[in-house]
């Protein structure tokens, strides 16, 4: 799953048109510069682990966040990772650059909710929780392909980034959607659809498409509330199902808040696809809680 693929072209046109027509379009969250530098370096065939490590090590605080994240329970590594080169050797270029993206995204994203009743701290806690949950679930799935495993943390972290897009570009309408959600006691997804005619999944997949992120990740963001919109044979289904279940477990554990007080509808088919034994569920939940505490401290330090 490299980021050099053909762009995903099925982003909801209603979302694309409204976002691109917005006068504040330039306020869209941007990819952290270091991630772009890493992607350019990785695509150069002569780049080795030392070259990539040096790019990351130029930022000491980022290096520290990367190493602490990699050493957390979310990644389940048997030995302590004490250098960026070692992290690359164990996880590969792609996963390390994805963790760098995750670790730098929160710091480079707007922290203001533009005066609207949307709690940014709880929002990022929820996003980190889903990233951690997705990575922990990945450890419990036998035979999960490496290219899926290495994108789980980032996909979880960015799954709700469409809310940030809506908040930044359409703050008043987004606040109205939250009001509808509160007054009608419906989920935010339905309220967004009423107000915008598209939802945060559409807005998020638009942004990831603009960022030229891997197609599977764009699909996971677009379909994290509706995995049943994909046929089970689709090559992205497992990845989408994993992010969907990670979101549900994070809601269940009450880690942060994406602005929605209810546990989203859980697809039984998505759960069955992960093939995680029932007896493992309490252990998975405990690991998520432990890993979340570690990663949260690292990313917000």
């Amino acid at each position: 799953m490299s980021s050099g693929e053909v762009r995903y072209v099925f982003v909801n046109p209603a979302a694309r048109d409204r976002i691109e027509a917005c006068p504040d379009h330039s306020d869209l969250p941007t990819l952290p510069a270091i991630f772009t530098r890493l992607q350019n370096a990785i695509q150069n065939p002569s780049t080795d682990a030392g070259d990539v490590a040096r790019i990351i090590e130029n930022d000491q605080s980022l290096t520290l966040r990367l190493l602490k994240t990699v050493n957390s329970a979310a990644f389940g590594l048997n030995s302590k990772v004490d250098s960026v080169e070692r992290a690359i050797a164990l996880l590969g270029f792609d996963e390390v650059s994805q963790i760098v993206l995750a670790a730098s995204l929160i710091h480079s994203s707007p922290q203001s909710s533009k005066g609207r009743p949307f709690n940014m701290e709880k929002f990022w806690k929820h996003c980190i929780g889903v990233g951690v949950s997705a990575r922990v679930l990945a450890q419990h799935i036998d035979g999960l392909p490496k290219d899926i495993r290495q994108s789980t943390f980032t996909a979880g972290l960015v799954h709700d980034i469409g809310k940030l897009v809506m908040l930044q570009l359409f703050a008043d309408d987004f606040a109205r959607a939250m009001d509808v959600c509160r007054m009608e006691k419906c989920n935010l997804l339905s309220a967004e659809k009423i107000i915008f005619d598209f939802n945060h999944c559409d807005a998020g997949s638009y942004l990831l498409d603009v960022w030229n992120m891997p197609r599977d990740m764009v699909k996971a963001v677009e379909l994290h509330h509706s995995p049943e919109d994909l046929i089970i044979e689709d090559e992205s289904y497992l990845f989408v199902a994993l992010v969907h279940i990670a979101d549900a477990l994070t809601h269940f554990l009450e880690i942060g808040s994406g602005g929605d007080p209810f546990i989203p509808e859980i697809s039984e088919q998505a759960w069955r696809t992960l093939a995680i034994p029932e007896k493992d569920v309490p252990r998975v939940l405990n690991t998520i809680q432990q890993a979340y505490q570690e990663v949260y401290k690292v990313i917000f330090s």
Partner: protein
Amino acid sequence: MSAESEAESSSGKSVQEVLDALTPQQRAKIDATVSALFRYNSGESGLVRILRKLKTVELARRLGSEK
């Protein structure tokens, strides 16, 4: 071992003991809270069933520890 019975053994008291210790009013309150939380999940199979059970026990234990 099922998810529910594993939840029992981690705390000392069995799930049934925890639930039996509740008054009917407490049980009704917990059931209402769980139903509200899972309002978009009407099914009682698979993961939803496990999570509903775990949440019920968690709330019951919280009530127990508040006594």
